[in-house]
């Protein structure tokens, strides 16, 4: 035991350079689910974070980093970090002591819970935190506060993939295969993911496959950098993923490119699918999606004929009112062709948040308990109650999902603890969300910077940045990783888990929160996850270090984890068979109309991370992409007489914003695209549709109907 799992070609045989007077902390990037390894350079004398040094030996990225990764360390020394607790006095946030802040929080919690019941205080948490913190949030909500209302921002991010995977293959691990498998695929179908910009470190793997001759099919309404180098680019109309997958399935079934033996032995539901996709002929699908018949047929043939292949997707598929259908339908592509459980065959979703995977496994999701257990499952409740040392009845049931919780603020929920999230930038209809937050009786926020959301809080608690804490993260592959930090807490800052433990203590629940280190918490998490789907029991800090990460499930101390799932082709259902589910194309919740004739889609740019609270503060990243813009196709722009650099007002039924036009042929003629990393008047989420996916409760960020109006002439010359 103790070898490095999935030692990969991406690893490089160099040692990092250690400069005089400095030491290296080998940790992982705080941005995105790839969790690239990096070394942080720390000055020994005063423990200041001074730079980054490649970590050539880490198997996932071999020292490579995207711009966010290179610049990540710079947030540690930023001047605008929160250094003391803040309390709102006479409408203004003023510095205060920890005692004042904590006393106020405790009295308010007791007040609100006394008056309106336990569930009136909610927790809105995040997924960029370590597993330890995510686990602690779930536990603190259930038995620290005794509230059922805890949910997290991963609801906006991964929940459709989660539901989709669960309903199709019975397990929700971001990828069934380790990333090193990608290069053994003969075909890669990437849908709704601008991999090049959002998960740049996946590109060497994709090129690795291509260098071996693999074909690349990209499904994306825009000709992103990923689509630019694809063999087939299916440039679909946003919101037509179910249809395009049905079209591909139709062609593969018609041309007998399916793996009948696999279907018969390892799946159920194929006949229904076959029946349903009959009417999804290429020409019909072409009408719905706007993709040429030729491309649909070519893509289906490439995918069907390949021996090994992977289907990979991301938010472009998931953030829809039919997100779970789309996910399952893309999984179907692999199921009907038998591309599962082998090197180079499987399905994956690109995890967006740093700990998007781990964050959804250990109980900060309102319907879940640690280890992916269902909170409604009596056995699961009993087991977790035993681990926590409480009565089963003390654990509340499921509460409201993230966006529903925001909508309930001021109504059912009177007090809110916001941790590691910035919902006033990241939620749909942000203007309304601002209203909800203002309706609260009491709003406390934990953050390292004064985010747009924190600006509205009654109390702001300063937490540490990622490189000042220890813990574990679980990456896109399901690989649990050890993140390490500098031993410092600048100013009055405290680590999030410490704050929560102290809060529990003051609430009289301290005996359940006797943790002195992240490792203490992790050891409890291991036990809590034991026997669950995401079983971490066999993972220890020591093992993580020795093996440079361990893939869950890892149920015993002897186990080395499971990099590739379903090698025995037994899926996680009692009969061991994967479920082939059939879906009709319904299209997006909001259709274009005469008044709102254009589709708006939103997404990321490579320089920023989520709500931009961190990356917008880092000067280099901000300079590379200072403001949002709207991408418009030249022929659409011509209709509105808009030229490059002019200001355009984009409005949906919910709101409007003014943006600088970027005229480009990379986007479809019937849509516009706007990146979402900005807040306040620059937030595109003023416009997005809050319609929720019925099963995953994810809002439909990717499609809404808008209109365009030109408002002014050129504001800034756009050279180059």
């Amino acid at each position, binding site marked *: 035991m103790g070898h490095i799992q999935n030692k990969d070609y991406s690893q490089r045989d160099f040692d990092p350079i250690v400069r005089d007077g400095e030491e290296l902390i080998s940790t992982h990037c705080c941005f995105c689910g790839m969790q690239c390894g990096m070394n942080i350079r720390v000055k020994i004398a005063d423990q200041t974070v001074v730079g*980054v040094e490649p970590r050539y030996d880490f198997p996932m990225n071999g020292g490579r*980093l995207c711009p966010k990764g290179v610049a990540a360390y710079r947030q540690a020394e930023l001047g605008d970090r929160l250094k003391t607790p803040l309390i709102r006095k006479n409408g203004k946030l003023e510095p205060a002591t920890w005692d004042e802040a904590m006393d106020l929080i405790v009295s308010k919690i007791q007040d609100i819970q006394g008056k309106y019941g336990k569930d009136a205080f909610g927790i809105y948490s995040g997924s960029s935190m370590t597993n330890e913190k995510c686990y602690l949030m779930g536990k603190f909500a259930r038995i620290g506060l005794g509230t059922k209302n805890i949910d997290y921002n991963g609801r906006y991010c991964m929940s459709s993939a989660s539901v989709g995977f669960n309903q199709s293959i019975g397990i929700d691990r971001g990828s069934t295969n380790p990333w090193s498998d990608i290069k053994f695929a003969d075909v890669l179908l990437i849908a709704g993911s601008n991999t090049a910009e959002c998960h740049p470190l996946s590109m060497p793997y994709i*090129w690795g496959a291509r260098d071996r001759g693999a074909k690349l099919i990209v499904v994306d309404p825009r000709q992103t950098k990923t689509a630019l180098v694809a063999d087939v680019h299916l440039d679909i109309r946003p919101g037509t993923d179910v249809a395009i997958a049905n079209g591909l399935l139709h062609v593969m079934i018609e041309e007998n490119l399916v793996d009948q033996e696999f279907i018969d032995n390892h799946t159920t539901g194929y006949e229904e699918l076959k029946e349903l996709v009959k009417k999804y002929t290429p020409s019909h699908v072409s009408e719905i999606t706007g993709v040429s018949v030729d491309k649909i047929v070519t893509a289906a043939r490439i995918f069907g004929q390949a021996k090994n292949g992977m289907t990979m997707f991301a938010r472009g598929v998931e953030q829809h009112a039919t997100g779970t259908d789309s996910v399952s339908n893309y999984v179907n592509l692999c199921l009907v062709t038998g591309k599962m459980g082998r090197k180079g065959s499987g399905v994956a979703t690109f995890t967006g948040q740093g700990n998007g995977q781990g964050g959804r496994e250990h109980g900060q999701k309102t319907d879940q308990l640690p280890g992916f257990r269902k909170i409604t499952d009596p056995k699961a409740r009993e087991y977790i109650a035993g681990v926590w040392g409480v009565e089963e009845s003390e654990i509340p049931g499921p509460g409201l999902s993230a966006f529903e919780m925001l909508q309930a603020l001021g109504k059912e929920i009177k007090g809110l603890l916001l941790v590691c999230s910035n919902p006033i930038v990241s939620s749909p209809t942000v203007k309304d969300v601002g209203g909800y937050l203002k309706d609260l009786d009491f709003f406390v926020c934990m953050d390292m910077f004064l985010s747009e959301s924190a600006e509205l809080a009654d109390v702001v608690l300063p937490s540490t940045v990622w490189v000042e804490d220890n813990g574990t993260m679980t990456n896109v592959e399901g690989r649990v990783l050890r993140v390490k930090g500098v031993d410092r807490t600048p100013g009055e800052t405290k680590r999030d888990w410490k704050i929560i433990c102290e809060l529990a203590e003051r609430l009289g629940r301290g005996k359940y929160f006797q943790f002195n280190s992240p490792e203490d918490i992790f050891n409890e998490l291991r036990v809590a996850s034991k026997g669950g789907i995401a079983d971490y029991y066999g993972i220890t800090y020591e093992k993580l270090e020795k093996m440079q990460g361990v893939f869950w499930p890892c149920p015993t101390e002897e186990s080395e984890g499971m990099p590739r799932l379903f090698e025995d082709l037994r899926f996680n259902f009692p009969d061991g068979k994967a479920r082939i589910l059939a879906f009709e194309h319904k299209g997006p919740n909001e259709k274009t109309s005469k008044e709102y004739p254009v589709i708006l889609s939103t997404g990321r740019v490579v320089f920023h991370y989520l709500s931009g609270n961190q990356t917008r503060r880092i000067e280099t990243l901000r300079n590379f992409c200072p403001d949002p813009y709207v991408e418009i*196709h030249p022929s659409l722009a011509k209709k509105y007489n808009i030229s490059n650099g002019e200001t355009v007002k984009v409005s949906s039924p919910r709101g409007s914003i003014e943006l600088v036009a970027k005229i480009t*042929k990379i986007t479809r003629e019937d849509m516009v695209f706007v990146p979402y990393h900005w807040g306040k008047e620059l937030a595109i989420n003023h416009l997005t549709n809050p319609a929720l996916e019925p099963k995953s409760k994810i809002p439909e960020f990717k499609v809404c109907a808008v209109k365009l109006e030109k408002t002014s002439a050129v504001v800034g010359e756009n050279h180059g």
Partner: protein
Amino acid sequence: MAKVLYIDYERCIGCKACVIGCEECSGHDHLSRMFVDELNPGETVATSPTPCMHCVTPACAESCPVQAIAIADDGTVLSASLEKCIGCKNCTYACPFGIPRVDDVKKMMYKCDMCYDRTSKGRPPMCASVCPTDTIRFVDEEEIKYDPPKPVQFKWDFGGTVIETRTVIGLPDTETHRFGYREGEGVQE
């Protein structure tokens, strides 16, 4: 064996990790020497990084009125020496590849030195270390020049003047345009 930078710009995603990474090199004074340019803005998202090409006979050095630009023993063309450089920008204009820059305020020219502090210790330069897509690689000079995986450029014929560079550029597939590198390529036809 001598190693050189190899740029396979078909893989570039325009993320500028190399540009920021360049600032992290100890001899670089937080001034980036790397370029990433949009090749065909409005048409495609194609981009390309450009480090110094490290010419065998560098036009920058030949055009320098104060002989401030030296070539290291390994062939690396260095930034102008601080005390000699008079900030005249002849190098900026002479370089056929558009590399040297001059800081007008500090009156100093700066350019890629292949991260001399790293390469002298056997590590790849920062840009090649961080490049998330392997667009920039640090590879064996002989191999990449004379046994390349795809068509490469390192001898440039400018109307009879042949300039050989140590940095090697890998060309996108122009036979079949398999990867979308063709003119005026938009998303729809």
